[in-house]
């Protein structure tokens, strides 16, 4: 008799008339108050629920796996297999049809098509569960709330303003869509409306806003899910939606903002950096650069890509900062460089700031002093920790005229100590982010020609690869011995990343390569026949794996505040798959270390 039960809604559309009326006669309706758990994970259910109104979240622990709305049914597993795979919680006042379990089981038995749907449903969910980890990223974004996107704050204009006024307001507010207040009506006017009015309809600049804007404003609530906004945009063919919160307009959501949420905002940051008029304007984009790292990682973006995006953004940030604060004397003579992992484009989470300034000619001491303090002051405001090795523009060693700096390089090459090797290594990875790149090229050419002139120099430099060798070998053996043992820890940077980066760097100097990223250097060395293709691939794979593990542990350290442990990986915390990968990656390091040793006859030292 419940005519309202929609038997056209799958899987019920597979029932014949008689079965459908049997079903209709048997259903009851259940009401669930907000935050009621309808079915707990692992428990069985006496009914199949079909939502009439309201919203049910399917949760796995804290994370929302799916949001169910009217006509959706749940949970086939709880009914058919007696154990729900997730927890189902009402998040609004929710009404559901309750189809009794015995009837469902009976219909599954009698009606093959209906039954197939249910078993399919169950197996699909099991398959999904296995796949879930990989696809989590984008879905998680779609399940973000509208308020989490970067909304454009609302800008208002009166309906009886002219469209010329509107254009001025748009430009001043840097906002291409304005809310229009026209008596009790609310409308929206966009740049496109203006363009159409003037260019296509040939209307005058004095045309009133109310005659050009549209009043069929489509809006979403700030608490709505992003996917709901996306659906609305598609359905109404709108690129923008008005956002409301508690009845008030709180902003405008553009499709690009949703994209921004998906890609961690990275494509929006450059524009904000470009538009900055002061160091303060840069603080927010600088923070966003760091925040998107975590988001990109969660979305399953490959670590090399994250590092590349992050480096590009950081370089844009440095360059803008330089433009804002460098005095004219420095702008004319200077070359701002970033070095080390920042230069190689392999830094994701900010560990330190390795930067320097090369000058074509001496500049007034007062200008230089002010620049040094302004620059590093701004960077620490942006959240870059100072470099422990003091490789920063504040250190006169790293901000001096090029002639003096070249003398400095020679003395590092001639001085066989760890500090010199470290400085050379960091510098050889430098890239110019602002100013005169020719200064950097000159300094680097100096290194390669000087190093190559004397094999001993290169070998001394290469020797650093053995720096942490003992620790690494010990770790390696212990890994082999201790799969499954929790007490072992490994220093990813010393045992994994450093030997690869440094070994490749030595060969890159020998070959005079201009590439700075380790992966690019490997490619160049393989193409030049110096490394075998196989070793090249293994090295890239291993490096990428170390970076990924390190990134995860850095993000973890940021959350737990245990920064001293950010490069430490505890074997006990790894899955067996990860342990296997780590072991393979460390084997590659060992193999490569031998290649470097024999190439530079390190055995003789």
């Amino acid at each position, binding site marked *: *008799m*419940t*005519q*309202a039960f929609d038997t056209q809604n799958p899987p019920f559309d597979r029932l014949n008339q008689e079965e459908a009326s049997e079903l209709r*006669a*048997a*259903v*009851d*309706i*259940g*009401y*669930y*108050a907000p935050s009621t758990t309808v079915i707990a994970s692992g428990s069985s259910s006496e009914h199949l629920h079909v939502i*009439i*109104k*309201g919203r049910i979240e399917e949760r796995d622990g804290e994370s929302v796996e799916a949001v169910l709305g*009217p006509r959706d049914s749940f949970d086939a597993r709880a009914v058919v297999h007696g154990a729900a795979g997730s927890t189902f919680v009402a998040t*609004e*006042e929710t*009404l559901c049809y*309750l189809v009794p379990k015995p009837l469902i089981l009976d219909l599954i038995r009698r009606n093959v098509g209906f039954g197939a749907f249910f078993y399919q449903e169950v197996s699909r969910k099991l398959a999904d569960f296995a796949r879930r980890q990989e696809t989590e990223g984008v879905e998680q974004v779609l399940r973000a709330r509208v308020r989490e996107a970067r909304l454009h704050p609302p800008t208002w204009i009166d309906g009886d303003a002219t469209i010329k006024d509107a254009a001025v307001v748009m430009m001043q507010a840097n906002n291409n869509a304005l809310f229009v207040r026209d008596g*009790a*009506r*609310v409308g929206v006017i966009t740049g496109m409306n203006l363009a159409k009015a003037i260019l296509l309809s040939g209307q005058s600049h004095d045309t009133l806003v109310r005659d050009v804007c549209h*009043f*069929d*404003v*489509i*809006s*979403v*609530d700030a608490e709505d899910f992003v996917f709901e906004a996306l659906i*609305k945009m598609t*359905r*109404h063919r709108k690129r923008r939606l*008005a956002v*409301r919160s*508690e*009845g*008030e307009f709180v902003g405008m959501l553009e499709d690009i903002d949703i994209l921004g949420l998906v890609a961690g905002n990275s494509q929006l940051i450059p524009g904000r950096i470009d538009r900055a008029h002061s160091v303060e304007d840069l603080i927010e984009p600088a923070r966003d650069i760091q925040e998107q790292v975590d988001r990109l990682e969660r979305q399953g973006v490959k670590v090399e890509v994250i590092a590349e995006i992050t480096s590009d953004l950081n370089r844009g940030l440095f360059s803008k900062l330089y433009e804002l604060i460098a005095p004219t004397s420095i702008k004319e003579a200077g070359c701002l460089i970033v070095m080390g992992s920042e230069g190689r484009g392999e830094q994701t989470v900010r560990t330190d700031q390795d930067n320097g300034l090369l000058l074509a000619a001496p500049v007034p001491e007062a200008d230089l002093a002010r620049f040094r303090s302004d620059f590093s002051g701004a960077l620490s405001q942006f959240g870059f920790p100072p470099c422990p090795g003091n490789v920063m523009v504040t250190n006169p060693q790293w901000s001096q005229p090029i002639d003096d700096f070249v003398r400095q390089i020679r003395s590092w090459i001639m001085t066989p100590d760890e500090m010199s090797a470290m400085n050379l290594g960091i510098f050889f990875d430098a890239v110019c982010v602002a100013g005169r790149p020719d200064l950097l090229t000159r300094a680097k050419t100096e290194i390669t020609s000087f190093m190559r002139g004397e094999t001993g120099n290169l070998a001394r430099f290469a020797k650093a690869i053995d720096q942490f060798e003992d620790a690494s070998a010990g770790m390696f053996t212990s890994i082999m011995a201790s799969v499954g043992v929790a007490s072992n820890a490994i220093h990813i940077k010393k045992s994994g990343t450093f030997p690869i980066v440094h070994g490749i760097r030595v060969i890159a100097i020998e070959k005079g390569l201009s590439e700075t990223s380790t992966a690019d250097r490997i490619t160049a060395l393989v193409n030049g026949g110096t490394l075998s293709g196989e070793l090249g691939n293994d090295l890239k794979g291993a490096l990428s794996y170390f970076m990924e593990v390190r990134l995860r542990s850095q993000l973890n350290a940021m959350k737990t505040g245990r920064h001293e442990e950010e490069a430490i990986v505890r074997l006990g915390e790894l899955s067996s798959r990860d342990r296997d990968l780590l072991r393979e990656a460390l084997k590659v390091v060992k193999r490569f270390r031998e290649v470097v040793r024999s190439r530079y006859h390190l055995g003789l030292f």
Partner: protein
Amino acid sequence: MPILSALRRGIDRLVINDPEYRFLFRRQETDEAISLDCETTGFDPWVDDIISISAIPIKGKRILTSEAFNVVVRPDAALRAESVKIHQLRLKDLEHGRHMSDVLPELLHFIGARPIVGYWIDFDIQMLNKYMLKILNIRLPNPLEDVCDLFYDRKFANAPPGTQLDLRYATIMKDLGLPDLAAHDAFNDALGAAEMYVILKDMKERGYRIPRAKDDASPFVGVG
């Protein structure tokens, strides 16, 4: 007028001409109720007749549609043209209907002493009382819960004077986010009232008030 209705109940209890129906007066604490709706030939209880009745039990937060009582009644009064339009029932459809004298005892046994829920329930009760008085010499003594009152209480109880009241069926459905049921028959209307009832009762328990959004006053239709 609680005193008046208590008095009336007391009298009815004495004057009831069939002691079998004393159970109607039995009061007990219960989480059960009956959502009731009658379709009629028109809106004048003195002239018009009932043509169908639906009664749906509610137990706690469950609406037991599977146990609903549905009946088509053969009216005494002539079927009016308007109600044919409203209910899409023709006299021919009612030929299979049963007479009220036959239906009423069954309905009363079904309802028992449970409170009766409905939208503008006074009207349905007045209609039923016409037959009640004729057959049993009493009025329906059950406690009544009108979803209009519950809705008023959740939405307008603390409203400033002069607030425009809107207690229309469609408005309540919309405010509670309930899907509009296509056909207006007794069952769907009783079901709608039952749905309103469980939600509004829960809102009352939680102390939740339905926002009187500012957009109620604005002609702007935002959400598409």
